[in-house]
């Protein structure tokens, strides 16, 4: 007869094995679902949740079902860093997607990296990735420089404009983007004729646009994510009867702008940095984008009234974690890191990602595409004229 001690040991081994098999993979999702920057987060959340459902239906990650732990940061960096710590130390997550905004990510990326958590970064500020400082932070979204360079090339090389007026807002993001835009233009041999930072809630922009016009600007380039400010730039230009092209941040082509315009034609001659994945070519979207649109659109009541690349980005960010774990055959963040650092052209919906040990920004320049703002349809756009 076996001893009670031996039985207990055997029983605990069986229970532990069973528990491990049933163990869920907990993935933290830091998302500003409420607050002033919620539009992108709400759309990205659709993609993240759909990817989790899809992964779980196909057996989970390495046989473990995924449990998504969503935390609403309300766009507040303090809340974001507290929630990140809660996810790591109370919920024991090994993977975190987000936060959505760069300002929040500046606070969370160092903390998550230090805690040994694999962090999928979806903020665009350059300093959020650095393989030496944050070895476990991998970016799926494009960088701010990619947005700005794409728009600059379009304004200078395609539209053949050389007298640029840059408008940023006074937030950290707006000021930094305007500065980067100016520096990148100078690298192209173009010195802006006018550059200004404006409070995002300023109600009248006629001074600024009149000054830009008086300076001889032949293109206006807004670098702000504030919907109200973008709409006021377009309204002021339209009311002035100044048909100068506006080329800039994707916010100028977001759907909420349309309702704020004094006249719908004020959205014409407006172009923004977009993506190949959400640009119609000969009336069709790329296959992978269309497939995702087809499955997500019915769940949204048959209508997509937000920019679809946000959904694709959320979807891909979750899928990248699953891909890394499956390839590494492990849930160990360090092993997944090694896999991701040797990934070339992983086919996502939003883009085809490549990371190396020296470069943790995965989105390729070739995935960028200029769009015409007034062509919004199901979250995607027609290409800007070339």
């Amino acid at each position, binding site marked *: 007869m076996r001893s009670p001690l031996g039985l207990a040991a055997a029983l605990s081994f069986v229970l532990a094995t069973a528990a491990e098999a049933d163990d869920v993979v907990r993935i933290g999702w830091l998302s500003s679902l*409420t607050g*002033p920057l919620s*539009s992108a987060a709400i759309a990205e959340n659709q993609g993240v949740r759909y990817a989790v459902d899809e992964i779980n239906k196909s057996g989970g990650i390495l046989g473990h079902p995924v449990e998504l732990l969503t935390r609403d940061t309300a766009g507040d960096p303090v809340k974001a860093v507290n929630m990140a710590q809660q996810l790591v130390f109370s919920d024991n997550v090994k993977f975190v997607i987000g936060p959505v905004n760069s300002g929040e990510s500046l606070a969370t990326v160092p903390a998550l990296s230090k805690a040994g958590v694999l962090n999928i970064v979806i903020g665009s500020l350059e300093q959020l990735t650095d393989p030496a400082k944050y070895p476990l932070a991998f970016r799926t979204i494009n960088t701010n420089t990619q947005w700005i360079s794409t728009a600059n090339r379009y304004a200078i090389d395609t539209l053949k404009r050389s007298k640029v007026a840059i408008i940023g807002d006074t937030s950290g993001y707006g000021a930094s983007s305007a500065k980067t835009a100016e520096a990148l233009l100078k690298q192209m041999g173009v010195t802006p004729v006018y550059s200004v*930072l404006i409070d995002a809630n300023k109600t*009248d922009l006629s001074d600024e646009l009149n000054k830009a016009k008086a300076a001889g600007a032949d293109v206006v380039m807004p670098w702000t994510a504030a919907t109200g400010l973008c709409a006021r730039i377009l309204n002021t230009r339209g*009311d002035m009867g100044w048909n100068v092209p506006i080329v800039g941040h994707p916010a100028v082509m977001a759907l*909420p702008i349309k309702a704020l315009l004094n006249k719908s034609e004020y959205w014409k001659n407006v172009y923004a940095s977009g993506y190949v994945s959400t640009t119609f070519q000969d009336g069709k979207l790329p296959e992978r984008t269309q497939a995702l649109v087809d499955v997500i659109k019915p769940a949204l009541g048959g209508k997509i009234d937000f920019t679809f690349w946000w959904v694709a980005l959320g979807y891909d960010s979750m899928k990248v974690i699953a891909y890394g774990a499956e390839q590494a055959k492990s849930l160990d963040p360090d092993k997944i890191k090694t896999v991701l650092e040797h990934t070339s052209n992983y086919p996502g919906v939003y883009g085809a990602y490549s990371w190396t040990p020296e470069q943790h920004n995965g989105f390729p320049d070739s995935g960028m595409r200029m769009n015409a703002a007034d062509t919004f349809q199901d979250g995607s756009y027609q290409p800007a004229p070339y």
Partner: protein
Amino acid sequence: MWPVIVSGLAVGASYATTALAYNLMFSTSKVLSVTTGQIVMLGAVAGAWLMNSLGWPALLALPGAILVGAAFGALTEWVAVRRVLKRSDEHLWILSTLALATMTQQAVALVWGTEPRPFPRLLPQSFEAGIADQKFWLPIGVMIAAVAALEGFYRRTMWGKLFQATSEDPFAAEARGVDTGRVRMLSYVLAGALGGLSGFAAGELTFAYFALGLSMTLNGFIAIAVGGLGSSVGAVAGGLALGLLGAFATYLFGGAFQQTIAVGALMVVLLIRPEGLFGARGMRAV
């Protein structure tokens, strides 16, 4: 230069009307309610909702927005002021009104959304009207009408005199049979109506935006601090000065300096005249 002046005056007029609402509430309760800017925001949001979503004409939506403001004024008095004043002489109303203001902003963000929404054109006019555009003159007109109406109210009506009596000495007023509780409630309802009207009039300028309240609360407060607490003339002078200062600061130095210069000016005024430009100097028996 004229566009700078006119837009500065229009924004300043909104600050001034917010400051008048502050004064109305302060006169009967000695409370500077943090909800004041939220009333203005509710006026803009309610107006946009009634016209855009329910299809009401502007003439019907205007009293609707005023009613929403008045109701929120009453709610502020009932929830965040009355009970706190009854139980404490300390300035706990700062916390209670701040809590109500925060909850209101969050609720509007959840229900209305966090992006600015359009506010319809109220009067038929071309968008190319320049400085004659109604979006500038409606808030200025409302400010002038509000000051005139308030002066008439204070000087010519019995309720106005009751407001003044309660403001001067609530204990003496009560001793003479004035129901100071009712007077205070009425002052919050009136302030709410004025805030709702102000938000409606400035809607074309500000859009219907959930975060508008915070900016109005801050700038309305600066306006009364500069102009002098309790003075309608001071509220107008403070509001217009702040609006013009912000517009010229942006025009001359760029938007990055707008708030710094505006708040810096407040500091300078308060250092030189702590009671504000038109405020009464406080006397203390020793």
